[in-house]
């Protein structure tokens, strides 16, 4: 893990990091990645990945309309709203 990897990963994760944080994470994550190399000792040929502890197949329910949150409740925690919608900065013109 090098500085460029930290910067790229932070971009992918949408995290604005300070220079100090980039430096700290560079060494700490490098050490964690060294540690997890231990997994390469394990032969996992023909082993199925285990995504969940209880392996359920799809759980279905009827597709029926039901009550949902009232608009005021849904907007109550929004950082910015006009009372009808969530407000965000302009989405065109940026990256």
């Amino acid at each position, binding site marked *: 893990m090098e500085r460029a990897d930290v910067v790229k990963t932070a971009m992918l994760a*949408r995290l604005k990091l300070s220079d100090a944080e980039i430096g700290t994470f560079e060494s700490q994550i490098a050490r964690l990645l060294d540690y997890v190399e231990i997994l390469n000792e394990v032969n996992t040929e023909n082993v*199925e990945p285990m995504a969940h502890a209880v392996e359920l197949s799809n759980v279905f329910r009827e597709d029926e309309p039901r009550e949902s949150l009232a608009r005021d409740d849904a907007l109550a925690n929004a950082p910015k709203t006009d009372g009808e919608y969530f407000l965000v900065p302009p989405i065109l013109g940026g990256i």
Partner: protein
Amino acid sequence: MSISGATAVELLARMERGDLSSAEITGAFLDRIQSHDEQIGAFLFVDRDAALGQAEQVDARRKAGRRVGKLAGLPVAVKDVLCVKGQPTTCASRMLRSFVPPYNAHVVDRLNTEDAVLIGKTNMDEFAMGSSTENSAFKQTCNPWNVQCTPGGSSGGSAAAVAAELAPMAIGSDTGGSIRQPAGFCGVVGLKTTYGRVSRYGLVAFASSLDQVGPLANDVAGAALLLEAIAGHDPRDSTCVDRPVPQFSRTVDEPLRGLKVGVVKEHFVEGLDPEVESAVLAALGVYRSLGADVREIRLPHAKYAVAAYYLIASSEASSNLARYDGVHYGFRAEKFDDLIDMYAATRGEGFGEEVKRRIMLGTYALSAGYYEAYYLKALKVRRLIRDDFDRAFESVDVIASPVSPTPAFKLGELLDDPLAMYLSDIYTLSANLAGIPGISVPAGKSGNGLPIGLQLQAPPFEEERLLRAARMFEREKGEG
């Protein structure tokens, strides 16, 4: 006996006899919170009037001879990772500092249905990521046995609240040991449930294939009672399994005949504190004296659990926490250039260091070119860890082990060393990977007077066996 030192079952019996009201009990715990919590720091939110109001309602219904729930009038503290309608639910994060959920978590609905009194929301590591509660954005929680030490984490507030007699019972969540490790550090009982036993609806997600909600209490019977109240099917969590919930509180006092206890050779290795080791060996002696058959078993992949766990948990966290974008709820940064920059600034300012570290590790492990080497590899090793348990449980009923390699460490001691902090969960996190239940029970104290926990693990959905086995030990130790 004092109110605050009584067990949940005793308090319930005294209310049923009419010796005590819920208002008196709730008032006594609220008074203790007022006088002691400045020092302990277990609670993030307490609404005295709301709690007393709930208590008086239950008292009135009980007095009128109307039906009341299993927990009628008992105060329960709730980790601030579960949504309570109309009360702040912060996850101890700046990101959710002012978030007030418009709905209740399923577990909170269950507590209300069973007439518990919600006494307050407890402190935790931010988004449940940590092993010391030091990652809270708001306050430090101290270990009630020694305020220089951590209560453990991430459910450190819930464990400290029960240990300091600020509540007889509490709800925690456990993704890699977050109920059992603080329970062990604080000398209380804590149970991580089988994956699928308790609904996670309204639990703020950290790592969805690992997260489980569970009870903490000052004795095993209290944990059994609280589990009985919160467990069961909920169609709002599709991973919540539809199977009957045993009446844990009825059977908890029945000893198990012919119990076979497994001990794992791989657990007794370098890094295990000698006092913890001797407490666990003494516990095995207790089981032998009760007629149990203690035998050695192998979990050959145990040493890979920490590595597999941190890759899987961090990967899932990086995905789950993508929702905090400053748009629908929570914090939004004030200064930014455009939409993408708003996301990045909001998340950079809103999350604390440990959360950012795990999002970074998880994002990296899932990114192009690394997914197979890290994430997929970890999921394969996870299967081998589960297979180890399945094989072990063919010859034993429960597995006994330490909860943590050491008693509670000092506040600040491991803060700059993430890997050392992660390794403190070495005995607990394989239960999350495998989805099996585990319990932490007090097993004595170190020379410095710090509690030491004994962990028992059982096959999926065998919480009843786990509680009964734990109760056998507790009774013999004379701590309950």
